[in-house]
């Protein structure tokens, strides 16, 4: 009697769908692509269920499949992705206000105190996610491919069809914006609370 066991696994995979969709939307910044990536992931996971052992890591295993499907989507839509990325680079950046004319920082970065304690707080991750969501789509994609999917930078540039210089520029802008955003929305607020 294997059927009941299989159907409950299928149900478990289907239950992961909202979580998978959240990840795919965040990564791809395109509803249709995200839906496709998730559908393909669920199909692949159900087909591969017999090869999967160790139920406790089912979620990790399925997210692993999703990562590949996300990259497939970027490949499939590489032309659009490349055009958006190039526009982002060409637009230049308001980051210039971080520095004065001689290239020195205009104001001191805050000391974040003990940032590690933030990693235990779910509110912190909500702020981090909001900051990532607010990045322009090309910056959000390239940043998450690099830092969350941990893809090799050269592979990312190749998939996005941008030069390595432009890849570095986008990653730099994404990190600087996220640094400012986390500082303003989390660490400055935490510091203010500490000093009350």
């Amino acid at each position, binding site marked *: 009697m294997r059927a009941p066991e299989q159907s409950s696994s299928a149900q478990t995979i289907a239950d992961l769908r909202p979580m998978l969709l959240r990840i795919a939307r965040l990564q791809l910044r395109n509803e249709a692509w995200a839906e496709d990536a998730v559908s393909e992931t669920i199909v692949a996971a159900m087909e591969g269920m017999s090869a999967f052992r160790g139920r406790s890591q089912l979620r990790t295993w399925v997210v692993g499949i999703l990562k590949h499907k996300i990259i497939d989507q970027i490949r499939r839509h590489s032309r659009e992705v490349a055009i958006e990325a190039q526009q982002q680079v060409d637009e230049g950046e308001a980051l210039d206000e971080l520095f004065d004319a001689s*290239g020195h920082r205009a104001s001191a970065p805050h000391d974040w105190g003990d940032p590690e304690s933030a990693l235990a707080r779910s509110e912190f991750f909500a702020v981090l996610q909001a900051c990532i969501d607010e990045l322009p789509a090309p910056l959000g994609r390239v940043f998450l491919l690099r830092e*969350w999917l941990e893809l090799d930078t050269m592979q990312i540039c190749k998939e996005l069809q941008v030069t390595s210089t432009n890849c570095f520029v986008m990653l730099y802008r994404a990190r600087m914006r996220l640094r400012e955003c986390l500082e303003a929305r989390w660490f400055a607020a935490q510091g203010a609370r500490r000093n009350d």
Partner: protein
Amino acid sequence: MRLKAPGEMIKLRINCREAHELLSRQHDTALHWSERLALHLHLRVCDWCRTVQRNLAFLSRAVRRLDY
């Protein structure tokens, strides 16, 4: 201060903007030795860039732990 190497000018003095770019890029690729040296020298005298270096390292750790 500038040291001349065969075929290229090695720039050892960098400003904060250049240091920030290197701090980001070293998360993505290996820096040239002269870039590492210039960054090292800059960080020795710049508290603000050292703070940003720590912030970026923390950002990487935090993103890897984003859970959905």
